[in-house]
C-alpha cells in the first residue's frame, strides 16, 4: 500500500481515549464520513481488467477502506459481452450508455467520485485517498424493503445537506448492483479464460436518469435547525434476469446478492456522497 494510503488510514482511525467509567453511556450519534464511489469500466473479454478489480480488492481488505469506498463494475464497450445478446453477458444498456457518455476507449478505466476524468487503475489509490479526506457536504439515507415473493423492491432515498446549500443544482443517481456473479472472464498476463470468475458490484440497472434525477425537482423538507433534505422514492420489480438471461435460469440474478447504490453529484457532476445497502435493507 502506498504511503499516502497508509497515512489516510491512520487519519481515519484516530480516536480519543475514553475513560473506563465513561463507557457504555449515551448512544453516540453516528458520524457521517465521506464515502467514495469508484466506477470501474470493465469487460469480460478484457484480460487486463482483473488487474483493476484486484487493486480494489486489495484496498478493500482494510476495514476502513471497505466501509468508505463503494466500487461499481460497469460492463460495456467492445471488451464486454452484451447481456441483451448473450445470456451470461454483464453489459447492460445503462453500462453501454455510461461507456459512451465518458468516451471510454480503453479498459480498464475508472472514475473516482467523477473527479478528474477517466483514470488508469494505477492512479485510483491516490485519488481515493484524496477524496476520503474530505468532509461530506451531503449525507444519504437509503431505506430499502424487498419482498421475495412478489420481487417488489420499495425504495426511499433521502439526501440531507451537511452544509447549507449543498443540494443546489445537485443530482441523485440510484443503481441496482449484484455481487457473487460467477461467469466468464479473461485473465491477465496470458492467463486465458476463467469460466468461473466471481464478478462483484456489477451494475445491473439505473433507476434514475442516466446522470441522475434533479434534486430541485424532488420533495424538500426543512428541519427545525434549517437542514434541508430531499426525498426520492420508487417501487421496482427485480427481474428474473437481466437481458437475455431472463430466459435462462442458469443466468438468473440472485436478489440475496443484490444491493442499492445511491449517490449525489454536485453542479459540476462530482460525487458529493455515496451510500449503499442490500436489497433487503440493513437492520437497525
Amino acid at each position, binding site marked *: 500500500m502506498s504511503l499516502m494510503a497508509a497515512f489516510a488510514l491512520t487519519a481515519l482511525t484516530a480516536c480519543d481515549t475514553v475513560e473506563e467509567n465513561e463507557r457504555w453511556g449515551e448512544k453516540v450519534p453516528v458520524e457521517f464520513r465521506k464515502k467514495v464511489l469508484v466506477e470501474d469500466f470493465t*469487460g469480460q473479454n*478484457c*484480460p*487486463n*481488467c482483473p*488487474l483493476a478489480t484486484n487493486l480494489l480488492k486489495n484496498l478493500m481488505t482494510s476495514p476502513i477502506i471497505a466501509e468508505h469506498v463503494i466500487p461499481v463494475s460497469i460492463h460495456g464497450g*467492445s*471488451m464486454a459481452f452484451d447481456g441483451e445478446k*448473450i*445470456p*451470461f453477458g454483464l453489459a447492460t444498456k445503462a453500462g453501454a450508455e455510461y461507456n459512451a457518455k465518458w468516451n471510454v*476507449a*480503453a*479498459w*480498464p*478505466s475508472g472514475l473516482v467520485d467523477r473527479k478528474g476524468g477517466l483514470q*488508469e*487503475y*494505477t492512479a485510483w489509490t491516490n485519488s481515493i485517498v484524496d477524496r476520503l479526506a474530505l468532509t461530506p457536504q451531503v449525507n444519504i439515507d437509503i431505506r430499502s424493503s424487498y419482498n421475495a415473493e412478489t420481487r417488489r423492491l420499495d425504495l426511499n432515498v433521502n439526501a440531507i445537506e451537511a452544509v447549507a446549500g449543498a443540494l443546489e443544482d445537485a443530482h441523485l443517481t440510484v443503481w441496482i448492483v449484484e455481487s457473487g456473479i460467477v461467469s466468464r472472464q479473461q485473465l*491477465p*498476463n*496470458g492467463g*486465458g*479464460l476463467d469460466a468461473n470468475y466471481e464478478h462483484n458490484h456489477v451494475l445491473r440497472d439505473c433507476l434514475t436518469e442516466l446522470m441522475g434525477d434533479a434534486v430541485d425537482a424532488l420533495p424538500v423538507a426543512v428541519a427545525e435547525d434549517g437542514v434541508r433534505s430531499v426525498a426520492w422514492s420508487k417501487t421496482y420489480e427485480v427481474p428474473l434476469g437481466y437481458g437475455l438471461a431472463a430466459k*435462462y*435460469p*442458469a443466468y438468473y440474478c440472485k436478489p440475496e446478492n443484490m444491493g442499492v447504490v445511491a449517490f449525489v453529484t454536485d453542479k459540476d457532476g462530482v460525487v458529493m456522497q455515496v451510500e449503499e445497502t442490500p436489497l433487503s435493507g440493513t437492520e437497525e
Partner: protein
Amino acid sequence: MMAAAAFGANAQVVLTQNGNVCSPDEPVVIKAVEEAIDLGDGQYFYIVECGMGDPKLLNQGSSTANIKVTLDTEDYKNIQWCGITEQCMPMPSKTEMRQGSIAAGKTIPIEVHGSFAGGPESYATYVVKMTVETGGKSEVYTLHLVYDETCTAGISHVTADGTASHVVYDLSGRIVNHTVPGHVYIRDGKKFLQR
C-alpha cells in the same frame, strides 16, 4: 535515416511462442477458436476466442529492457490490443505504438487479438506487422491472426486426399454442405446454432 539493426536470436528481447523463439522470417500464427456454450435447453451459443498460442516478448538479458512495439495493419478494425501496457483497446487506426518495459528474465504477452465474431464471412486471416524496438535495435515480425476450427474439437473426418475436415450434419443425420443462419446442426458430435 539508417535502419536500426535487427535483433538476432541472441538478442536481449526476442518473441517466443509456446516456448520457442520466433523467427522474423516466418509468420507468427495466432489462432482464434470457436467455443460452444451449452445454454441448457439444447441451444448452443458460440463465442469466438482469440489468443491460442499467444506470443510473448522475452527479455533474455540481465537488465530491464525498455521496449517500443508498433502494430501496423489494414485489418485494424478487427484487432484489439491488450498487451505491453495494462489497457485493452480496439485499434483506432492502422498504426498504433505502445511502450513498456520487461524485467530481466521475464516475459510480457503481446495480447494481439482478432475478432471473428462476424461469423464465417469474417474468417479471413488478419495480417499484422509488428515492430519491436529496444536498445537501438528493431525487429519486424508478421503476425497472422487466423480462425481455426481445429482448436475446438479436433479432427473427426479425413477426406480422400488426406486432408482433415469437419463434417456438418443436420438433426436428421444428413451431411450438410451449406449451413443456414438460425438452424441447428451437428459438428464433431456437438450441436451448434449457425449464427
